[in-house]
């Protein structure tokens, strides 16, 4: 089934219901479906093989996404923060393209070899003009719906592909059609070139939950939109939640955020102290932690609101620690933990996370990474507890091998974070003649406070063991994160090399 069917169902069932609010303008399901049909005809007539949006969030994002679906060509959103060199490289991999972009990029690329170049506003005007003819989507569920270049925090971006059937399986398996009340609104701040930006559109449209777009995040504008648009649901990456809480802390008159019912978070590791403070600051809000990857069509495991409360209130260590887990797998998804030789590990044993299910594509343009039985190696490391709660401990590639001993950066970071003045920490391995790899760390301190490296090393030695003690600990003012709250590890590694 084509992803455009999801919008078509919404448009045929509730044509006049508001689907999207962007820059204070409302767009109904009927309008957006008709615009997507117009867009599909434009794409087909142009002869393009790919459709791309290189811009911040706007109504052009869902129109191009579903329009590409109807036209049967892959939708490939691009990151507008990339450099000219990086973008030119990626554009070369998706030619001929129909490129919808901001005025700055139109100017930059007008003399380049881009088959079809159109300004976002012109694209919107052309597709929303309201003279769409019925254009039926093709049936082929195995066609590519979305191609996403992975963030490449460690190297060259890979082209992950998601087929219509992967995305539709995810939506049908996790969202009930039109289950949202008409007053529900979902504030979407994640960038449109990220899988979370795609899944937010699909889930919200199918649930009938209005999307409110916030193209550029700041705590002020986030709170303003939450209050002004009576936002009920939000998705945030951990750094956004920290910044919102710090900002609220600094205000004399606290915002009420009365309408807010649900905060979902994911995209990076949520510091346990931040989620604990958030649970206290917003007692009326339901918190959900979502874990997923581009290659899995977004969420594969969730820690729901009830799990948050039970874990936070529990004195039993095995239950309390679940506040730092990503919860249990979705019913349609299977998760296994395997060691380096591929053996399936038991409860509480750490290894690489493997995942299987109809929403898991596990595919890149270059190759299919799934094994013969459909299992996809995520390259994330973690373990499952006795009740199936999944705990992440970093990327499998980040595991430090020191003198033959495997050290997970996560366990050392947790100890460093326990120091009263440490607000962020990262542990990594650097080449060492003596050990193969040596453990080193970077910590960020609360402004105006201090910490002795010797004390930090002692904490690790006391809590873990001497092999885990970082040989060097640097104090920095901040760690480098990308837009989705993922640490850019290669930048930190460079500090030591």
């Amino acid at each position, binding site marked *: *089934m*084509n992803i455009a*069917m999801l919008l*078509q*169902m919404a448009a*045929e*069932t509730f044509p006049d219901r508001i689907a999207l609010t962007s820059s204070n303008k409302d767009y109904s399901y009927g309008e957006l479906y008709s615009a997507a049909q117009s867009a599909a005809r434009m794409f087909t007539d142009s002869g393009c093989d790919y459709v791309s949006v290189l811009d911040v969030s706007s109504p052009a994002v869902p129109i191009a996404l579903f329009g590409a679906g109807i036209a049967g060509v892959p939708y490939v959103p691009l990151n507008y923060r990339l450099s000219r060199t990086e973008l030119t490289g990626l554009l070369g991999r998706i030619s001929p393209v129909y490129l919808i972009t901001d005025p700055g990029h139109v100017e930059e690329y007008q003399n380049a070899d881009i088959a079809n170049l159109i300004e976002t506003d012109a694209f919107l005007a052309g597709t929303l003009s309201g003279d769409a003819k019925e254009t*039926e989507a093709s*049936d*082929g*569920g195995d066609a590519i719906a979305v191609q996403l270049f992975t963030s490449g925090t460690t190297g060259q971006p890979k082209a992950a592909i998601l087929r219509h*059937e992967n995305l*539709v399986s995810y939506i*049908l398996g*996790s*969202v*009930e*059609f*039109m289950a949202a009340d008409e007053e529900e609104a*979902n504030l979407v701040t994640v960038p449109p070139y990220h899988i*979370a930006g795609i*899944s*937010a559109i699909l*889930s919200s449209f*199918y*649930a009938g*939950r209005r999307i409110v777009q916030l193209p550029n995040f700041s705590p002020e504008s986030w709170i303003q939109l939450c209050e002004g648009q009576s936002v009920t*649901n939000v*998705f945030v990456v951990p750094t956004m939640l920290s910044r919102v809480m710090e900002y609220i802390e600094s205000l004399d008159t606290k915002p009420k955020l009365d309408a807010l019912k*649900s905060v*979902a978070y*994911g995209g990076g590791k949520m510091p346990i102290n931040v989620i604990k403070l958030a649970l206290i600051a917003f007692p009326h809000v*339901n918190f*959900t932690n*979502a874990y997923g990857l581009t290659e899995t069509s*977004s*969420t594969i495991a*969730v820690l*729901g*609101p009830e799990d948050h409360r039970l874990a936070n209130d529990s004195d039993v260590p095995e239950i309390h620690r679940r506040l730092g887990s990503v919860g249990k797998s*979705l*019913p349609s998804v299977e998760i296994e933990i395997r060691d380096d030789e591929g053996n399936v590990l038991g409860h509480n044993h750490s290894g690489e996370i493997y995942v299987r299910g109809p929403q898991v594509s596990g595919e890149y343009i270059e190759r299919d990474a799934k094994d013969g039985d459909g299992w996809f190696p995520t390259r994330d490391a973690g373990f499952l507890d006795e009740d199936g709660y999944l705990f992440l401990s970093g990327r499998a590639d980040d595991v430090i091998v020191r003198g033959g001993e495997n050290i997970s950066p996560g366990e050392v970071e947790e100890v460093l974070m326990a120091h009263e003045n440490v607000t962020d920490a990262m542990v990594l391995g650097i080449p060492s003649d003596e050990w193969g790899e040596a453990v080193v760390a970077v910590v960020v301190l609360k402004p105006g406070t201090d910490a002795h490296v010797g004390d930090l090393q002692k904490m690790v030695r006391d809590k873990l063991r001497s092999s885990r003690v970082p040989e060097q600990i640097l104090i920095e003012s901040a760690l480098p994160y990308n837009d989705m709250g993922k640490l850019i590890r290669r930048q930190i590694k460079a500090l030591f090399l």
Partner: protein
Amino acid sequence: MSTIKPGTRLKSVVCDTEVMVIKYSGDADISCGGTSMIDAKADAPEKGTINEAFSDGSLVGKRYVDADDTMELLCVKPGAGSMSVGDVPLVEKSAKSLPSSD
């Protein structure tokens, strides 16, 4: 009897119901309101009447499955007839309620 695969869209000839095949490949007598459904793009014959035994209706967005879970259909347009394969009714698939995560 029609040959179907995932993505095939069928319409009822006795009511407004339309479904899309999510799971199943092969021949099957998919019926709505007691009469075989036809390809959604085919010309509709004159509307017949709904068999009383299959008149509970189909709801948009609901998934209908057989007892062995070999077949799954998504109702994309609602109607007054209910779904069956031949005379065997299909049942609504109960959805697990999940917290909204995106």
